[in-house]
């Protein structure tokens, strides 16, 4: 949320590395992996506003990812609609489904909401299995690519990465303005939020709907990257994986969950034993983080920085400037 960011050079370096990635990655598989991370991040960036900022524990976003992927496969594949049009529609379908899921479940208390999202993920699996004519059932369905310059792995990477940047900018814009403050207020004290007039339910529903759009777009690109999807592709554990990326990365920040997504996606690919352990590894990591650094690993750095430069904590006496206060109140009257 801080505009005067001392990490700006680091961000620029990261951006350059991301843009040039196909030239230094070495092999096609790594480009594929980077594309996967970007597609995941589109979903996670939206989910981050829900989990990290608004404090709503949604563990079932994999259901929305599946909806986006199937919508894209059916539109662009079965009906041969232009893939870019299909992508936009898939985002819209994700948003509508997010809205419909949020409509009843966001009225429920925290744990009930988490269970509702869990159930939603299982329902989506049930429906994709049952609606064989649409989704191919258990056998799955082929997902077309985007064609043209985006047919090659490198081209597709740039496309997905570009859309990921777009979503990052959206969430960054939201997080640093009044909407971001309202979301954090809902997370930290919904009583305080209501007392200043934040419409609790409306903000939650709007945020959740946006995360549905992000999940739909992310799902469409994810499906196109996989080129073939079955209900097995969207196991419940994947939804938990997204959730863990955010919790581990830290709440109320964007960079932390971003790094979390990269590391958690890439690590099992490079450290073979972890790949065998699969979700066990994520579960153990989540437990360690919750017990040791519940604020997320992202906050360890903040904490270290504050440690290194101890503030002068001399007790300041609050001394009001009454003339300024009176002027501010007058200005408020006239506004």
């Amino acid at each position, binding site marked *: 949320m801080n505009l005067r960011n001392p990490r700006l050079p680091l961000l620029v370096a990261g951006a350059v590395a991301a843009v040039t990635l196909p030239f230094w990655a070495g092999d096609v598989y790594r480009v594929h992996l980077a594309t996967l991370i970007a597609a995941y991040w589109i979903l996670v960036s939206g989910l981050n506003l829900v989990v990290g900022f608004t404090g709503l524990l949604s563990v079932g976003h994999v259901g929305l990812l599946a909806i986006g992927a199937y919508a894209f496969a059916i539109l662009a594949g079965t009906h041969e609609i232009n893939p870019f049009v299909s992508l936009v529609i898939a985002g819209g379908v994700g948003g509508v489904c997010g809205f419909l899921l949020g409509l009843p479940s966001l009225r429920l208390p925290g744990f009930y909401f988490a269970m509702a999202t869990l159930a939603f993920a299982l329902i989506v699996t049930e429906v994709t299995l049952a609606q064989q004519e649409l989704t191919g059932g258990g056998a799955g369905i082929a997902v077309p690519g985007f064609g043209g310059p985006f047919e090659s792995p490198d081209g597709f990477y740039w496309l997905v990465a570009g859309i990921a940047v777009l979503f990052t900018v959206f969430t960054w814009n939201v997080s640093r*303005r009044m909407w971001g403050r309202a979301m954090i207020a809902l997370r930290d004290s919904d009583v305080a939020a209501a007392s200043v007039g934040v419409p*609790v339910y409306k903000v939650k529903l709007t945020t959740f709907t946006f995360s549905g759009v992000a999940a739909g777009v992310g799902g469409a690109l994810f499906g196109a990257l996989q080129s073939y999807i079955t209900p097995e592709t969207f196991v419940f554990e994947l939804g938990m994986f997204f959730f863990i990326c955010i919790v581990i990365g830290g709440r109320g920040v964007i960079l932390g969950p971003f790094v979390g997504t990269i590391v958690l996606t890439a690590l099992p690919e490079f450290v073979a034993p972890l790949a065998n352990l699969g979700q066990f590894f994520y579960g153990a990591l989540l437990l360690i983080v919750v017990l040791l650094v519940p604020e997320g690993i992202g906050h360890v750095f903040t904490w270290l920085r504050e440690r290194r430069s101890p503030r002068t904590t001399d007790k300041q006496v*609050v001394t009001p400037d*009454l003339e300024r206060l009176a002027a501010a*109140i007058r200005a408020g009257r006239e506004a």
Partner: protein
Amino acid sequence: MSVADVAASGGLQATRVTKRFGGVVAVDAVSLDLRPGEIHGLIGPNGSGKTTLLNLLSGYYAIDDGTIVLDGETLNRTPVQRRPFLGVARTFQKPRLLGSLSVLDNAMLGGWRDARAGFVGTALALGRARRDDAVLRARALELLHGVGLGGVLDRRANQLDHAEQRFLEIARGLAMRPRFILLDEPAGGLTEHEIEQLARVVTTLRDGGIGVLVVEHHTDFVFRICDRVTTLNLGRMIAQGSPQHVRNDPEVIRVYLGA
């Protein structure tokens, strides 16, 4: 001042308001009117229903009986989150701040009623969200300097000491541009010197035309700054009037001051 006069001059008016919790009557047919530009004290022993009455006025509890009227308009069923838009702000007995955000961000949140940009506009960085931010930031800055928190703008709210938290809550309430502000035990836990500063702030609010309701244990503070005082005991109103009048009321002395 008759009921009609209050309605004409504008005011927050509770008439025979009643709240029951199970079998217990927490607030029993209490009437109270808060006028613009006055400080109204609400005192009473523990469990007398002070905070419950404040929660009724700010909408956290629905009233079981009676009416709450603001400028002639009935508020009985108006939800909490609508009341800031009508000009009623409040603070909490136990400060409710956003610990992970800066002092400035906390105060800016109070300006939500004036934030016009929608979600999509904000995401697309349309000018309105930036203008909202600039206006609300400027307002919050002035208010924070005004209440004496100008030196800790960037500090996280969970690193503030107790007095700073109380003053920040007042600044956040003022950022709503309220016509009435309800303070729940603002002097609780403050030192003598800090209470003195609080008194100056509250008086400045009154002089600015805001109606202030002060729910307090600290009777000296209330009798010193308030224009009128209401005393509750066991949910009932036992005295109402000028500080002089209430201070000398035999019933008040018996149940409260004499205890």
